[in-house]
């Protein structure tokens, strides 16, 4: 792996005991992010995107078990950090923005209080400096008359404004890495693009690494440096943004890209996922390619497939039995719809 990486994760697994047995929502995934780089994780609901980010943050549900061959963040081995040391990193050098802006702020405290709090905890004990920083960032994220907003409570702000506040909060301590878990899914379509632009601009301006989880492939195409496609707790395809978009190799990625919005035809911000079929149950022993019940190319061999990714150079890799030539041939045959 490149040495410029601020986060390197190898073979991350999350297991959660449930009533029917052991659930394996994240089943051995690798990823890395370097300074200023944007990694987009895409995949349909329930494929383990949120749990992956929570695993990095050390915020998994109490019952969940996390294992990994490697989890390095800025020279810290996250796997062995004590909760207290991890808390020092969280909110300081690694921040997270959540999927639910309406409920992610504490209703009992003012915006100013909640913004300042994280600065006072990680940077310095100066209320004046915390206030200045809060005003500066609120303006950055596009909140008007920022100074007077500090005294407002969350219920006095709209969903879009709250998510802007959450972004400002994530930036309070100048983090190296920011994880945004579907930051716009819960918002109005018109607001979604604005918020994502704010986020992408600031990430660029402050040269942070970013993991952006999203359903909006249009956004991915615009902001991602690297793309990682997850299916049923695994990475099925990953690579540089252009490579994956230009030559998707995995049938699932191809399916996703087939339902990418077409200007004028598809509503902006519409959720993808019109790949037919249902996600398999991830409880108990699992083997073979999990996509086989939905895959048009599935064969007997797919049930025994081991997850050896096929690497195509330049970091583009996919996990499927089919040979690159075979797939390329089909793409030609399909008349270049992609």
């Amino acid at each position, binding site marked *: 792996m490149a040495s410029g990486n601020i986060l390197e994760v190898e073979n991350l697994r999350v297991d959660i005991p449930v009533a029917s047995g052991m659930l394996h929502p994240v089943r051995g995934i690798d990823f890395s992010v370097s300074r200023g780089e944007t990694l987009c994780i895409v995949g349909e609901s329930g494929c383990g995107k949120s749990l992956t980010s929570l695993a990095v943050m050390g915020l998994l549900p109490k019952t969940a078990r996390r294992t990994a061959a490697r989890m390095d963040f800025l020279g810290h081995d996250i796997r062995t950090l004590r909760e207290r040391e991890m*808390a020092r990193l969280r909110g300081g050098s690694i*921040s997270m923005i959540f999927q639910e802006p309406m409920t992610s702020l504490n209703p009992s405290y003012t915006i100013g209080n909640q913004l300042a709090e994280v600065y006072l905890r990680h940077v310095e004990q100066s209320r004046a400096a915390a206030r200045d920083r809060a005003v500066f960032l609120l303006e950055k994220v596009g909140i008007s008359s920022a100074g007077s907003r500090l005294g407002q409570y969350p219920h006095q702000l709209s969903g879009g404004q709250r998510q802007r506040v959450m972004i400002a909060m994530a930036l309070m301590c100048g983090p190296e890495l920011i994880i945004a878990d579907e930051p716009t899914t819960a918002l109005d379509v018109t607001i979604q693009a604005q918020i994502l632009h704010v986020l992408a601009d600031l990430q660029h301006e402050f040269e942070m690494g970013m993991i952006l989880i999203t359903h909006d492939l249009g956004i991915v195409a615009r902001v991602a440096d690297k793309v990682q496609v997850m299916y049923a707790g695994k990475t099925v395809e990953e690579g540089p943004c252009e490579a994956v978009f230009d030559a998707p190799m995995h049938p699932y990625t191809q399916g996703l890209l087939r339902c990418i919005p077409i200007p004028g035809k598809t509503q902006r911000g519409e959720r993808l996922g019109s790949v037919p079929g249902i996600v398999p149950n991830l409880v108990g022993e699992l083997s073979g390619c999990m996509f086989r019940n939905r895959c048009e190319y599935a064969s007997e061999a797919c049930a025994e497939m081991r997850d050896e990714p096929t690497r195509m150079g330049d970091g583009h890799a996919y996990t499927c039995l089919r040979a690159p030539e075979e797939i390329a041939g089909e793409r030609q045959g399909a008349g270049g719809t992609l």
Partner: protein
Amino acid sequence: MPAYTLKRTFVAFLILIVVSGLTFSLSHLSADPALTIGGEQASEEDIQAIRKLYGFDRPVHVQYFDWLGRALSGDFGESYHYKQRVFDMVSERIGRTMLLGTLAILFALVVSIPLGTLAAMWPNSIVDRVALFIAVLGQALPTFWFALMMIIVFGVWWRWLPISGHTQWANYVMPTIALGYYATPALMRLTRAGMIEVLASDYIRTARAKGLSPGSVLFKHALRNAIIPVVALAAVWFGFMLGGSIVIETIFNLKGIGWLSYDALLRSDLPVVQAIVLVFASFYVVLTLLADLLNAYLDPRISVR
């Protein structure tokens, strides 16, 4: 907000009028005050004379408005039995009842909030079980029985605490525990339920994602929100503590207005009963009003309406 407060105060006032009207008519229908005043040896003529003198021969509603008019100016009449001004009798003792009620609700909060919080932090753990046990016990034991047990153990066997009176602080220990324990289960369960809900909320996840210390997450972010309904319930229970002290004050011979009301009931001393009922009703009304205002103060989402 001022309009809201004004409306609530007006409703509170109406409730007091209705309550006092009801008790007045019920007590005057169920007991004949002239008999009480005249005593057992009074002749029929004496009774008639008393009726005339005190105005008991007038219709009940006339008597009520007469009483109400005086009550509004602070004159609650004279005790039939003690021949003292009711106002003085009540004001001499009301402090003890309020002290006992305050101590009891504080005791209940001091026990139930930490216990409920611990139970919520480790649901179904041994801590949770112990807390649940304490709560169930508090509900299952009748207050008077619990009070008597304490008297036997701490007052009679070990002689640690005085068993009756109201002159020293030690007199208040057992009554406070007996009365406060009664409110503990409800407050603890509400704290526990509130904390469990809040701890699973998105903003607690945010607080943890900000790397805040466990203390800050637990107290600043979680407890503050979980406690809002508890405070409202505590205010209502405070009303119960003040009114419910009748049994406890009688058992411990702690001469507050609870004890006085029991005494007055036994003697059919209607002016005293009437005044104390009004006091108890005011406690409830004022505390419920206070609970609402406190809620509005604690929860910024309410105060803007």
